[in-house]
């Protein structure tokens, strides 16, 4: 599945660009504001039927209502808890597996065929099987989230280790580093950027997998709230929930990015 990795870090814009460089702070707000205005006017003028697109005011009221009733918070906490546990489990396993495959050629020779084959089945594909095996309880959610996390983390860890320049290993062997010293002082720091790429992917996948299982089989959580809104034909609930899902995804990603920046101070200033 996620057999390639993309460093999804912002890079500085360089080079000659077509338009003269503009530095308009806050211009990014223009589009959402215009969109919101169009949405408001459109809803008020009845350009789109409310069951297709409820007015922003309605969505906001629904959001407040869900918040005040505690439904939103309760469901959010449940989802967060699931995603964090599942992610923790999947990421640890993925790191372990990726490290083992990266460091040991024989292990990789044994494991890679099975791993690559299983990695081809998206998290979603595992749901029916997992349902048959463990039912629809909490363990299902954990397993699916963990599976979604595991693959990109393992893959990137392995690739990261493989990409460590052999020159550093040579330097280490000159200074008679032990195997443990090589792993701890060279492999680990050299692989941190790639591991983080994997972790950020993993977290994205975890969040996605969670929404999927909750859509399919749950009576709580944000995914369930979406389904409920859909069944009750209340798109305002759906949109309010999507906003929460987006905000949490944003926050989780930003948190990992912040940790990454801290761990990689040595890299930030590089051109």
């Amino acid at each position, binding site marked *: 599945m996620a057999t390639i990795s993309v460093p999804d870090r912002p890079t500085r814009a360089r080079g000659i660009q077509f338009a003269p460089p503009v530095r308009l702070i806050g211009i990014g707000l223009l589009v959402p504001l215009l969109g919101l205005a169009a949405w408001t006017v459109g809803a008020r003028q009845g350009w789109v*039927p*409310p*069951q*297709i697109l409820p007015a922003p005011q309605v969505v906001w009221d629904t959001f407040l209502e869900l918040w005040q009733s505690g439904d939103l918070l309760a469901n959010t906490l449940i989802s967060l808890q699931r995603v964090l546990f599942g992610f923790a489990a999947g990421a640890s396993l993925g790191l372990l597996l990726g490290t083992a495959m990266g460091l040991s050629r024989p292990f990789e020779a044994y494991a890679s065929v099975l791993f690559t084959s299983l990695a081809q089945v998206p998290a979603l594909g595992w749901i029916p099987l997992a*349902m*048959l095996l463990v*039912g*629809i*309880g909490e363990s299902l959610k954990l397993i699916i989230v963990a599976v979604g996390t595991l693959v990109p983390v393992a893959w990137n860890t392995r690739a990261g280790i493989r990409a460590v320049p052999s020159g550093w290993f040579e330097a280490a062997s000159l200074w008679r580093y032990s195997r443990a010293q090589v792993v701890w002082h060279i492999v680990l720091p050299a692989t941190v950027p790639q591991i983080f790429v994997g972790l950020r992917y993993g977290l994205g996948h975890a969040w996605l997998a969670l929404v999927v299982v909750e859509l*399919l*089989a*749950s*009576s709580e959580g944000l995914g*369930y709230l979406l*389904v*409920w809104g*859909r*069944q*009750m*034909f*209340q798109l305002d609930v759906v949109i309010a929930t999507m906003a929460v899902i987006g905000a949490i995804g944003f926050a989780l990603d930003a948190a990992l990015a912040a940790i990454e920046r801290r761990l990689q101070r040595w890299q930030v200033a590089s051109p």
Partner: protein
Amino acid sequence: ARAEDLTVRIGYASIGAGNRPFVGGTLAATAHAAHYVEDELKSDPGVKIEWFFFAGAGPAVNEAFANNQLDIALQGDLPSVIGRANGLRTKILLASGVNTPIYLAVPPDSDIKTVADLKGRRVALYRGTNLQLAFDKVLASKGLAERDLKIVNMDAATADAALASHDVDAAVGANELFELQKNGIAKIVYSTKGDDPAFGRNSALIAAASFEEAHPEIVQKIVTAFVRAALWSSDEANRDALFELWAKSGYPADSFRADFEGQPLKFRNSPLIDPFIVHQYEVQTQQARAYKLLRKDVDLTGWFEPKYAETALRQLGLEHRWTARDANGHDLGS
């Protein structure tokens, strides 16, 4: 009439086993499986009929109406009310599937014997469908409410699997549960059959108002076709043939046989929009509001449009084939 090219899109808020495009249990299912509508429209070669079946049941039908992708659909009472509450412009043309019972199934070794035993247990229920309101009423009659149970929201197929894997302690559903009972995966411990008639659920044929206004003559033909299907489906002589026809849905004829056990065919295959049905929809609306499934009051005035059904009955000379009932379910006499 000028033969204009028109495709009439008819939806059905259910789907067969394994997503087969066949269903059972209502006169609309008969109309589909035995091509009543297509036959009725033979004289209009420009008109095509397209059927859609929705695993997502009533909620999915609402989405399709909102998208202008359906002209006519069979849909349960609660989703129709939800659709109307959210501004869908529809007309109810004909009853199809009235007094449909709901069942409660539990694993064979379960200690649940009655509805009252459900307190605190995990129960599979597809929310937003007409099962939900019917079940809520049953619960209320035993002094319970949804929050006293742990309701797990899932569609029928998922619920069957969950029951089999003991992921839920009970499942609320329709006749497909008989199949599980036969396979020894579940046993049915409760049915609304024989209980308060108000507990049953109802569904109806509804049309997009815009379609009804634009093509009254086509609507008339379609309704007439459905009435013909109702006639055949209500004939006790056809009992076995009817269940066999419905078995195209992948649910065995025996399930339908058990489902209809002890009830005359015409009791559930009546197309009449009588005071009982209208009242049932009113009750559903009030209860849905009370259970907070609706966020504002819904006005049902003008929603029912019985004139097509009446015309059809008159044309076919069937004014007295089915017995109309008053709001309380008593026969109005003929």
